[in-house]
């Protein structure tokens, strides 16, 4: 799940990703008429989201076909679980923990500050696709409350004043790879 959406998938890249997904699905030995075949569906969706960054319709159709189930069933499962997303996230994914300990320590103010600085709401992506913000339920690092995770990195005891500092760090990173993501679409 370390993959981050890097802008242009490109045809070649998309093919490689489908191949990667197919290789995983083959190891599951799905039997098309086995009534229990769906028991690995959620693992496969995790895998697919790790590969593609999100779960667009085409990927859902592809998975439905492999499992010999309808697209509606796949879509129903995806929409039920918070972890799955059908829209791409930013290159830099900011998650603000909204667990109780973080809430009591003022996580809502940290969230507001991220929203204010980036000028997007929780659940949205900046127009250039670099940043997205989301609320996250307890990561269990309550001693570090309020906690913010950015991609894989955990930031503890984050106060609203620290928000611009965190963003600046990633801003330099984004602009360094900016050329690659500008020529998308």
């Amino acid at each position, binding site marked *: 799940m370390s993959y981050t959406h890097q802008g242009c998938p490109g045809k070649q890249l998309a093919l490689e990703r489908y191949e990667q997904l197919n290789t995983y699905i083959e190891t599951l030995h799905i039997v098309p008429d086995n009534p229990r075949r769906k*028991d690995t569906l959620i*693992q496969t969706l995790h895998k697919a989201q790790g590969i593609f960054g999100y779960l667009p319709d085409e990927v859902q159709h592809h998975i439905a076909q492999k499992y010999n189930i309808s697209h509606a069933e796949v879509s129903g499962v995806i929409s039920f*679980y*918070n972890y799955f997303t059908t829209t791409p996230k930013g290159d830099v994914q900011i998650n603000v923990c909204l667990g109780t300990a973080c809430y009591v320590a003022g996580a809502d103010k940290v969230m507001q500050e991220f929203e204010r600085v980036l000028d997007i709401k929780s659940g949205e992506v900046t127009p250039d696709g670099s940043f997205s913000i989301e609320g996250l339920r307890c990561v269990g690092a*309550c001693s570090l409350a309020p906690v913010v995770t950015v991609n894989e990195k955990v930031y*503890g005891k984050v106060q609203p004043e620290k928000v611009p500092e965190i963003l600046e760090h990633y801003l330099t990173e984004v602009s360094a790879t900016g050329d690659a993501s500008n020529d998308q679409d």
Partner: protein
Amino acid sequence: MTRINSQQQLLETYQQVRPLLNLRLNGQDVASSERTIMVCGGTGCHASESQQLVANFQALIEENGLSDSVQASVTGCFGFCEQGPIVKIYPDDVFYVQVKPEDAHEIFEEHILDNRRVERLLYTDPVLQERVAEQHNIPFYQPQQRIALRHAGLINPEDIREYIAVEGYQALGKVLTEMTPQQVIEEMKRSGLRGRGGAGFSAGKKWEFAQQYDAPEKFIICNADEGDPGAFMDRSIMEGDAHTVIEGMAIAGYAIGANQGYVYIRAEYPLAVQRLRRALDQARELGLLGTDILGSGFDFDIDIRLGAGAFVCGEETALIHSMQGERGEPTTKPPFPAQSGLWGCPTIVNNVETLANVPVIFTRGADWYNSIGTETSKGTKVFALAGQVNNIGLVEVPMGITLRQIIYDIGGGIKGGGEFKAIQTGGPSGGCIPSKFLDVPIDYESLASIGSMMGSGGMIVLSDATCMVKFARYYLEFSVEESCGRCLPCRVGTKRLHEILVNITEGRGTEADLVELKELSEIISDTALCGLGQTAPNPVLSTMKYFWDEYVAHVHDHRCPAGACEKMLNYEIDPEKCIGCTACARVCPVDAISGQVKQLHTIDQVRCIKCGACKAKCKFKAVNIN
């Protein structure tokens, strides 16, 4: 290591690996130059770069050619997360706190090479203002009794040999070679162990139900979908002692006649998943999982299933649906999963902490276990202590301890010297307990009788800075978001409760709202489909019961006593500081500010929508919030 084929071979292996822990278990011979450095590898400390700390120690050991006498390794969560990352040195029992990767050098030079403690990294007792060197002398640990967390801080969770060295898998060996499934269930019932996931049903009785059904297939599921915000004990056990859970599951499998187990674990816990995977591989390699375990003829294996972020999947019927690759919606009980669960087969769903208690019941006996705790609740309970308390962390205490002991003796009192207001237990299904109940001995029944519940063990301490109405709103927001939508009382009811609470906290509440809040809460409790819906109004009911005056203050006086509800605050202009620059009046979206140039401005409180734009704009800090 080679496969272990019998109970006899297991005991031989135990004798072989036992010396690995000599320094840690027999301690105190500090004259020798041998040392073991254990570094906390729980998620909290991991986030504070404890991994780098271990690497630094290992590099130093290597550089100094001390690999034969000094070891550094990662271990399970010590629980004292507030002070993390933690480093413990055996056999001295010296406990270093808030250690940074760069401190490794100093600890190594001073402590390991020169046998002198690094005073500045020792824990400081906040009351006595004295340094405390040994773990057992730190007040945080003194009232604790560690059973489920017995190996945290002692063994390396990534090495099965260390688990075997603490008599690991011997309970399974004993059960498989000396006991019938019926005897196992009797022993479990006698121990008095009750489900640690929240509801507190007798674990032995649950197993007995599943055992009674004759079915070609049965399943054991370990519920590690710890969705309660603010609770992290299951994650710590998985990260620090996964083998104990595996052993507990295998014993349960033998008792009910299941050959397959599953661990349903949150995808948000990558470290726990990784450690569990490794533990499963090691157990399989030694033949402690798989076919013909210890030559007994009993087959048992375990697979992992990842959750995908749905709180309701902690409910056992919803969890089973999720494992079948469906939407994780609950269904009515009966039939209970013990009769018809996964794929319609008898299935036991036990919580992580429950299973972690199982092996020790068989190595030390049910009589020993049931001597701990209260009349109705036996053993210990792990709590995740968090919120406005000085010592945030994981604590394991015998049932029957009081909340006062937990908050003040272990927790070190309220953060920042604030006043205690309430303690919230049981997460979104629980309630808030006010100070008058601080001396109630806690067990399943006593917590329920004061309007809360044991829950999975989250404990959030609240100080006088918390508004209880807003806090109830926070939990309802959670319930609205996490309601699966299957039944109407929960889907629509929680939404409506949340709307009323928003109105009250934004100063638009009426007396009729208070009546409706209570009635609606009771209706949801009575009519929702599953446990989560039925308990979702608890945060409202308990805060209304114990903090009624705060609700009244919001509705009648349009005032938030804790000063936490922004919309109820009044923005006022300080006549001393205002120079009449008109900046605030120009930025006000509702034209609520009046005043001439170079004269004092005033805010019309009726028009003001409390957006805060004037405060943000004023360069002279003349806008105050009251």
